[in-house]
């Protein structure tokens, strides 16, 4: 087991290295002079020179990559071209809202989607199943900002139940925090719920057709025990895997959701950085999100044994 954990952790190093190389190289993949690209169309030659120097573009490529990685490993992601603040500081200032939004969405989505999928599988072919599947297709099809605006319009503007926009820090109390985040979380959760509900339904259908489910029925087990004890535990591995993979959707969606609901998180930071071509910030955020994504999926790999005793490392 321990050997497996070590091996698995080591295996993420090359993946992260490729991510880092890619994120670093993005700047040089674009046609033309990177400094000029970052400086934008209205820049003076002095601006371009200043950026060139701050990025260390005069040194050889691999040397720059090496020192960039070295700095990142020491917690230095460079300095924002626009604000001159360290990128790590900027990320620290913005991380709480994004983390809050994503965790709330995750909890909300999993606790809605899994029972939904189980219900659909149990009632396969009925109107309930069709409703769940229809909801799933809608979830995949209606973009997150459309849901966001719709929810904000109905629940904040028309009904006036919840604040329209903004964010309240968790330190100001749970309910003010929740009040601001609940609509964004539902909007962001749409696709994620659709994804998890669909895989839950499909896996449950497969599991419910297995011989051991028939055995459980023959023993006189009730419907609840068959669905949630006998079947769901067997279906857990694919479901948990998809929950992990779906984090990518959450990250992408968070960028947009934060724009719609004016949440001052990493998503807003990314959008602002793009508009200002603040490349060190973009690199930092992309790298951070990718790292989180890889880490979450690594953890999920490691918890498989909790669900399935047949998996041994």
């Amino acid at each position: 087991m321990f050997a497996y954990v070590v091996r698995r952790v080591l295996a993420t190093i090359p993946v992260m290295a490729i991510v880092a190389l890619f994120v670093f190289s993005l700047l040089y993949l674009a046609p033309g002079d990177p400094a000029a690209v970052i400086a934008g169309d209205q820049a003076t030659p002095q601006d371009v020179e200043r950026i060139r120097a701050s990025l260390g573009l005069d040194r050889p490529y691999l040397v720059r990559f090496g020192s960039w990685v070295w700095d990142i490993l020491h917690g230095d992601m460079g300095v924002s071209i626009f604000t001159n603040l360290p990128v790590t500081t900027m990320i620290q200032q913005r991380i709480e809202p994004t983390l809050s939004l994503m965790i709330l969405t995750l909890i909300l989505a999993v606790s809605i989607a899994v029972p939904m999928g189980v219900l659909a599988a149990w009632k396969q072919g009925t109107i309930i199943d069709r409703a769940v599947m229809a909801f799933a297709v809608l979830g995949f099809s209606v973009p997150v900002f459309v849901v966001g605006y719709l929810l904000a319009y109905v629940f904040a503007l028309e009904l006036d139940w919840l604040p329209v926009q903004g964010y309240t820090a968790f330190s100001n109390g749970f309910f003010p925090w929740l009040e601001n985040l609940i609509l964004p979380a539902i909007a962001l959760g749409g696709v994620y719920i659709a994804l998890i509900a669909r895989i839950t339904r499909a896996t449950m259908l497969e599991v419910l057709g297995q011989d051991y489910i028939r055995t459980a029925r023959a023993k006189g087990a009730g419907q609840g025990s068959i669905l949630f004890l006998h079947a769901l535990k067997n279906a857990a591995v694919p479901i948990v895997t998809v929950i992990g993979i779906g984090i990518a959707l959450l990250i992408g969606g968070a960028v947009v959701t934060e724009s719609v609901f004016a949440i001052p998180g990493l998503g807003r930071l990314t959008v602002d950085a793009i508009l200002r071509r603040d490349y060190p910030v973009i690199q930092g955020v992309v790298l951070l999100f990718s790292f989180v994504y890889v880490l979450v999926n690594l953890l999920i790999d490691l918890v498989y044994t909790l669900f399935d005793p047949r998996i041994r490392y």
Partner: protein
Amino acid sequence: MSSATVLSPTAATAPQGVAVAAPTPDVLLPVKARKGFIGFLRRHPTMAIGGSLLLLMVLVAIFAPLLWTTDPTALAPARRTREPSAMYWFGTDMLGRDVYSRVLYGARVSLIVGFSVAILASVVGLTIGMIAGYIRLADSIIMRVMDGLMSIPPILLAIALMALTRGSVQNVIIAITIAEIPRVSRLVRGVVLSLREQPYVEAAVAAGTRTPMIIWRHILPNTLAPITVQATYICAAAMITEAILSFIGAGTPPIIPSWGNIMAEGRALWQVKPYIVFFPAVFLSITVLAVNLLGDGLRDALDPRMAKRI
């Protein structure tokens, strides 16, 4: 014992002294299966609905100039932010442009981006996946790189790519394609590897069939079904990504009326003039829904095994 002999219609024809079994009643009534085109639609309603909605949207995009539209980029400060009316069906935006015309022309951008990314990502992904599935040395390198690329959330990757380039439809297509390629490659590689293990492929290899022939005859036809399904989903995802990119200002240039751009422009006013955001949102959702339904239908029809899985 329940061997009671009951008289039945056939008993009349039976000779004397022959014990005739009672006919068993029908417990279930059979359902009539329809054949032909109507039957196909009944069996695959999602494909029918998705296909016709998408066709409608394509027709709207092609014939936008004929559908009572005006110049979608014509500014008219005098008639800013008019509510929807008989004159301006979807109202006008803050620069006085006709939202109806902009939304109809916006279909062009979404569909071009969606279809182009689907085709490009499929072709490139197919090639990469084939190479990885067939050349062991290339496989480990390619899959490492793909793993790395897949660790970057696709929208973020597209954003990062767009941040570097000038906004244009062409660049949006390239950026989204790059973000989608790893998934297709993985899919194709998986299919190729499992097909190579199939007895009939192994038999062809044993019979001395040359590799290009095997790929052409056995591998390619079998990857076509899953890749077609995947392509429709990519098309849907690409349309959403394009809208997101444009919405946050990293997509098509603002001069081009794309649904994401129209919504981005309506954003500042959405609390007072929600219709500017509303109409492109509805069109985008319906189009993506149509493509997704088509994809689900195709999946059910082409690959029942995969349909069971997801």
